[in-house]
């Protein structure tokens, strides 16, 4: 039946891959910055994404109950961002900071523990059942559908996907400005490239670390809210399920390279979706049961072949 649309590949494999890739990309930005600046793999990052989405939903539900109208997720996400940045600060102060001088492994273990703590807290507070984020199904944007349909290349993309893709572009551009033109952004890049040299030039590392949590936290909440917008529901393991692909994206792009993370996220997202495209014959190239293995395989191959990633990030 797809032949009649003529644009099956784009609509059902390419665009969904890009959307998934955008979410991975936003999450991977935080991971790659933490990895580059604080020098550890933060396993709790996915949980912050998830918690951010839960808080956003709660704010929407609260305004809905109080005033009769629910805030748009993107507006409700703003207070959520502040709250999650606060969570990052608290976690950093009490659970990560004591290990600044200790071997990396300790703080990685601590972040692993925080992952469990944050997730179980959310499960206790909100309950383990899934929550509806946005009701109903999202039909493809009718304007674009008509427009492209008349040109014989009908594009079927729902509004929520335009929102996610557009939002990601805006956030990445803001991030680019921050890193290229502001003092603190330059400091962050400097610490990421060479901590010792940065220290010599008088950069306050603690300030840079705080900035990292702010940027990482904001991107994580954005990723969480976009994910919730896409799947239209919330569940407590949604962050953890994104974590490994996001690690894969960060490694693929090169550790400490935010643009690399964005590119890596897009590649991983596309690879996952395209792996089950029927390239040969009618059946999927790879059984969809193996779909999540694609990201891991790319990650492992990359680690072995070129651990510095596409953008030549740090290797330790």
């Amino acid at each position, binding site marked *: 039946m797809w032949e009649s649309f003529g644009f099956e590949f784009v609509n059902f494999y390419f665009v969904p891959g890009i959307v998934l890739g955008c979410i991975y990309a936003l999450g991977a930005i935080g991971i790659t910055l933490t990895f580059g600046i604080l020098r550890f793999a933060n396993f709790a990052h996915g949980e912050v994404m998830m918690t951010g989405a839960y808080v956003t939903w709660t704010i929407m539900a609260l305004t809905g109950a109080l005033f009769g109208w629910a805030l748009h997720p993107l507006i409700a996400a703003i207070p959520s961002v502040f709250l999650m940045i606060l969570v990052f600060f608290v976690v950093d102060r009490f659970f990560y900071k004591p290990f600044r001088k200790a071997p990396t492994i300790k703080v*990685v273990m601590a972040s692993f523990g925080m992952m*469990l703590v944050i997730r179980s807290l959310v*499960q206790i507070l909100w309950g383990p059942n899934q929550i509806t984020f946005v009701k109903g199904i999202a039909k493809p944007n009718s304007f674009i559908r008509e427009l492209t349909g008349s040109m014989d290349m009908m594009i079927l993309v729902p509004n929520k996907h335009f929102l996610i893709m557009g939002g990601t572009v805006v956030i990445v551009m803001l991030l680019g400005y921050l890193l290229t033109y502001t003092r603190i952004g330059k400091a962050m890049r400097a610490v990421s490239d060479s901590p010792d040299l940065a220290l010599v030039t008088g950069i306050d590392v603690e300030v840079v670390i705080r900035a990292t949590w702010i940027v990482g936290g904001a991107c994580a909440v954005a990723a969480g809210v976009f994910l919730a917008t896409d799947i239209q529901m919330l569940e407590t393991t949604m962050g953890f399920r994104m974590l490994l692909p996001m690690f894969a994206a960060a490694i693929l792009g090169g550790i400490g390279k935010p643009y690399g993370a964005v590119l890596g996220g897009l590649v991983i997202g596309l690879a996952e979706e395209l792996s089950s495209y029927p390239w040969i014959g009618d059946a999927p190239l790879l059984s969809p049961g193996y779909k*999540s293995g694609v*990201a891991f395989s790319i990650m492992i191959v990359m*680690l*072995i072949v070129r*651990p510095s990633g596409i953008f030549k990030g740090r290797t*330790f």
Partner: protein
Amino acid sequence: MDQLIGYFLYFCSLLAVGGIYSLIALGLNVQWGFAGLFNVGIAGFVSIGAYTYALLTTDTSPLHYGGLGLPLAVGIVAAMVASGLISAIIGVICIRLRSDYLAIATIGIAEIIKLVLKNNSEITNGPRGINKIPRLWENFTEERFYNDWPMSWFASAETWQSIFSSLPRWWWQPCFALSIIIAVYVVYRLLEKLRLSPWGRMMTAIRENEPAAHAAGKNVTGRRIEAFILGSMIMGLAGAVLAMHLRLIEPTNTFDPSKLTFLVWVMLIAGGSGNNRGAILGSFLIWVIWSASEIVINVGINVIDDFTNIHVGILSTRAGYLRMLLIGLLLQYILQKYPLGILPESRPTASSKT
């Protein structure tokens, strides 16, 4: 009396599961404590051991490949060999990676192993898993064992049947627990010997100062792969014992990383990494806390229910998460207050006998 036997049997089960975790933690201690290899794919290696054992020793079944019905000892050895072989391949490829990278790589590999076990239903019965796995001691009461050698050499089937029916129903439980404890002890002695051997000292040297060890002409990569394989073989052994204990294994929930991989890391860190006795102590301690905390939390909820008007329905459905939260916080506490674990690593002194 029945109640006392009940407590005794629960104690046996704590020993058995604690022993299984001790084996895994000892394996991890070889990799992490000795060689500094950050393996977060424990569940993968344990599952290879468990599946190998299960496929080789279960009776023929239409649901999955085999089972071949081989003797238990063959299954156990094969579990270790299979886990060792897979880890050798992984080791050769990944061993050069730095700790965080190795962690991410192994976690990915464990996920891939899980996907393979899940998707090859004709061999592994897919997500439905393998059941009727023979358990040491208990298996003697199964017909196919007492009808066959070596049991049939000693007595006829009828004699065996009458012996088993004269024993209390739970006779094999203490035996099974004891066997696991003996296995833990044997592995522990071997590892202690190894730790004090030149090989063990070289491992410490490599872990602490790799360039120096390299400059001293040591084959750093080779030693590391050896440690990785040895640790994985012990994990494979633990997998075989875990399969015996559960009698059913399936890929998704049995080898759930948060309850297997992560809990084992907590055990090792709590007990003291680098110290074999610490690994064992940590395993038993954390498992007892984990298992008994359910009883305690439930009793606590009942107390709240009995003495207050608070509605406990919601609490009881979330008690399991409370347990996970406490384990997470316990880890943070241990990491900060006892950075070296309860039993810190003790280095063999330079003058000690080699």
